[in-house]
């Protein structure tokens, strides 16, 4: 992949309803924290990468103009990257490529969303053209259709999938309670989740992520700079990203090719042959609890069609073989553009032992992941404590 790259600092806002601040102030909150965490100043940064959801969600075209000061980008090169829900992973990958290529040594990556200022679902409706793939039910229905396709393809009965999805939701919300920056912080039982109102069946209320405001900033550095600046960097071990065809009915979405191929690429680069055994923690993008079940399979963490069995026996729960989303995941915090970069930041916190109350004891190798579009894009970044 070129030169070695490390995360040398992370910064996240308090996520939630942040109408106490203007949007540039929100971005500044994350950027201020990342510089404090890395112990460097904007003078040390060679370039900035920024991403968010499309203009309609932001209320203006090209919000990086509005955020120029908050991003500390004045007098520096800027790259903008966006791929819908996977934007945060793409922003991280842009920074990583920039440094790995040798064209920069220190890059600030920032992603944000302020969903309460507009109508996130309205924007999601415009992600597809308006005459062929016209959505019924917006984003939740696209993913519920996929869940049902997966259940049908592997003959997973409703009750078993329901139980596993409820466990995913309960575990994530327990994580959210331990993460002071999480948006939703509430104790749920399996029964609360399985009896919640139907949104897009089989998906119910607590299977769905919230609408959040939040920003995340991560500073990446070359090996030489990382060793000089940072006592304990999180090293980029492998990355992968894949896209899929546009028309949702063209392929079998139960076997999610972009997730499978992106993770294979990342594992190969990281030298991982048995991800379930070798990874210590995973920040899997889980805007819907049923989607996490599918990701567990397509990320190669359990055999196809068996995610419910593995989840029910506790493999991915706290204290299990591979705890997933100890931060609360996207189910507790979903500023969409930032959500993929928050996964990277959380993976960095885990492998450097800085995750606080939601730290997975002794974590050395962490996977972070995000998905975007109508099931179209998947991105992975694997971080480790050792170079």
């Amino acid at each position, binding site marked *: 992949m070129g030169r070695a790259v490390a995360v040398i600092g992370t910064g996240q806002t308090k996520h939630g309803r942040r109408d106490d601040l203007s949007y540039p102030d929100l971005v500044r909150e994350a950027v201020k924290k990342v510089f404090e965490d890395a112990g460097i100043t904007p003078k040390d940064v060679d370039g900035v990468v920024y991403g968010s959801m499309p203009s309609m969600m932001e209320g203006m075209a090209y919000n990086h103009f509005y955020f120029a000061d908050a991003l500390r980008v004045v007098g520096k090169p800027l790259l903008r990257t966006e791929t819908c829900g996977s934007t945060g992973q793409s922003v991280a990958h842009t920074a990583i490529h920039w440094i790995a290529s040798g064209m920069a040594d220190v890059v600030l990556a920032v992603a944000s969303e302020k969903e309460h200022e507009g109508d996130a*679902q309205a924007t999601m409706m415009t992600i597809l053209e308006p005459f062929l*793939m016209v959505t019924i039910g*917006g984003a939740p229905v696209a993913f519920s*259709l996929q869940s049902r396709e997966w259940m049908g393809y592997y003959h997973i009965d409703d009750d078993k999938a329901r139980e596993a999805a409820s466990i995913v939701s309960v575990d994530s919300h327990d994580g959210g309670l331990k993460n002071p920056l999480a948006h939703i912080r509430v104790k749920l039982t399996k029964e609360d989740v399985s009896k919640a109102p139907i*949104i897009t069946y089989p998906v119910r209320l607590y299977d769905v992520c919230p609408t959040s405001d939040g920003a995340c900033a991560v500073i990446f550095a070359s090996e030489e700079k990382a060793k000089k600046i940072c006592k304990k960097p999180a090293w980029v071990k492998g990355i992968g990203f894949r896209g899929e065809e*546009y028309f*949702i*009915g063209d392929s079998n979405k139960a076997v999610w090719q972009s997730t499978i191929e992106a993770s294979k690429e990342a594992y190969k680069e990281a030298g991982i042959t048995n991800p379930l055994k070798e990874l210590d923690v995973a920040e899997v993008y889980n805007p819907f609890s049923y989607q996490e079940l599918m990701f567990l399979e397509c990320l190669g963490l359990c055999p196809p069609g068996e995610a419910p069995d593995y989840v029910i026996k506790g493999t991915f729960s706290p204290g299990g073989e591979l705890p997933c989303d100890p931060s609360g995941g996207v189910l507790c915090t979903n500023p969409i553009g930032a959500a993929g970069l928050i996964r990277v930041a959380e993976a960095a916190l885990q492998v450097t032992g800085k995750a606080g109350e939601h730290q997975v004891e002794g974590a050395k190798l962490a996977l972070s992941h995000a998905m975007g579009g109508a099931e179209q894009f998947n991105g992975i970044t694997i971080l480790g404590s050792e170079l």
Partner: protein
Amino acid sequence: MAEQKEKPRKVGAMGMVPYEMALGPTWTKFFEGFKEKKILGTKCKKCGRVLVPARPFCPRCFEPMEEWVEVAQEGTIVTWSYVNYTYFGVTPDMIPVIGAIIKLDGVDCGTGMSTQIGGLDIKDFELVTKKVKVGARVKAVWRRKRQGNFRDIDYWKIIE
């Protein structure tokens, strides 16, 4: 930071932009077919797949798909979802609805997302879970007045 006693002040804003999106010859012909209650697909001469909606080019082979095929109006449900929440542009009287992906007989892909199951009492959730299943057979029900757009197929009816 001073504690905020009053509700945070906000400024209203709205942007509205009308668009005119070109359909191109393939999708023009596809929707013209709807006016005559025909579902048209195109066939790839390289991989042999028949795709609906018709495509100007094969997404996998990148070859033009110039051979037109009128396809069956019956098929099986690949997946479905019961939509029971309101969102942008949808009022409580417009739900519940059932979205679905249907594989039409002789077609090598599923339909897109504008496919709705109807013809039964959708408000009766128990009835829906009994009748609407992956693998269930369905057929197209057309609107009486068709305008050459995706709304021309009113819904897909379960074949008992």
